[in-house]
C-alpha cells in the first residue's frame, strides 16, 4: 500500500511537471533567463502550498494515513557539501534544462534525448554513493570539520 501510494503521488507529480512544461527545455531556459515568469511563479506557488499544507499537518498533530505514526520531519544543518553539490547541480540543470523529476517524466513521454541525461544521472548518483576518502569528506563535504566543532 505504501508503494502504491508513492506510485500514485509520483504519477500525479510527473503528469503535473509535464503539463506545466517543466519537461520542455525552452520553458526552463526562459524561466532561468527571466524571459518568462512562469517557472518562478510555478515554483513559488508549489513551495507556498507545501509549506502551508505541512504546517496544517503539524498543527493537527496528524498521524500518517498508512503507517499511523506521528507526522514528523527534521531540519538539516548546512554543510559545505550542500553548497558544493548545489553548484554542480546548478550547472547541470542549466545545461540540460531539466532536473531529476522532469527527466524521468521525459523518459515516459518518449523524449529520446532524456535517455542520455538519465545515463548521466544514474552514473552521477552511483559515483556519489561510493565510499569516499576521509580527506575528501573533510574538504569538500565539510563533514569532519563540522564534527570537530561539536
Amino acid at each position, binding site marked *: 500500500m505504501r508503494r502504491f501510494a508513492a506510485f500514485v503521488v509520483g504519477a500525479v507529480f510527473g503528469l503535473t511537471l509535464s503539463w506545466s512544461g517543466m519537461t520542455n527545455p525552452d520553458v526552463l531556459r526562459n524561466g532561468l533567463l527571466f524571459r518568462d515568469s512562469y517557472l518562478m511563479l510555478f515554483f513559488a*506557488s508549489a513551495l507556498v502550498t507545501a*509549506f502551508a499544507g505541512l504546517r496544517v499537518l503539524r498543527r493537527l498533530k496528524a498521524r500518517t494515513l498508512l503507517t499511523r505514526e506521528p507526522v514528523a520531519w527534521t531540519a538539516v544543518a548546512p554543510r559545505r557539501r550542500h553548497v558544493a553539490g548545489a553548484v554542480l547541480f546548478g550547472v547541470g540543470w542549466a*545545461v540540460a534544462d531539466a532536473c*531529476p523529476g522532469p527527466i524521468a517524466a521525459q523518459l515516459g513521454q518518449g523524449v529520446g534525448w532524456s535517455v542520455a541525461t538519465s545515463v548521466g544521472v*544514474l552514473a*552521477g*548518483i552511483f559515483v556519489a554513493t561510493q565510499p569516499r576518502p576521509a580527506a575528501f569528506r573533510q574538504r*569538500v563535504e565539510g563533514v569532519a570539520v563540522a564534527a570537530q566543532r561539536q
Partner: protein
Amino acid sequence: MHQQLAWYVGGPILGLCVVALRWLTNERLGATGAWSELVERATGRVGALDTRGWMWIGLVVGGVVFGLFGSSLDGYGWLTETFSGWTVAAILVGAGALIGYGAKLAGGCTSGNGLSGNAVLSPASLVATGTFFGTAIAVSFLIEALR
C-alpha cells in the same frame, strides 16, 4: 493537455504532492531519492524497489500519460539548435552526471531540497536552493552570451 497548465494550478498541485506523501507515509518527496533507489537496486544494496523506486515508476507513467494526450517536443532546446546529434547526447550525459552527483552531494534536487526541504525551512535546503538557482541562472546567461 496541449496548452500549458496555468502556474496557479500546476504549482499548488505539486505542493500538495509533497503534503500528500508526508501525510500518507511520512516521507520526504524527492526525485533524486527516486533515482537513487534504482541505483541501489542495480548494485544489489536493496532487494526490491520500495516507495522511492515506485515513485520513480510513477514519474515515468505521469510522463507516459502526457505523451499520449499532450504536445510533443520538437528538438531539445538550445542544445539541438547549437550542436549536432552525438554532441548533444554527450553533453546531456555530462550534464546528467553533474545533476545526479551534485544533487546527491547536496542532499536533494529541485523537489527534495527546493520544495520538500524548503517547505519545512530546513537550513541546508535553503542554502542549497539559493545556490543552485543562482548557479543555474548565471550559467544560463553565460550560455546565452557564448553561443
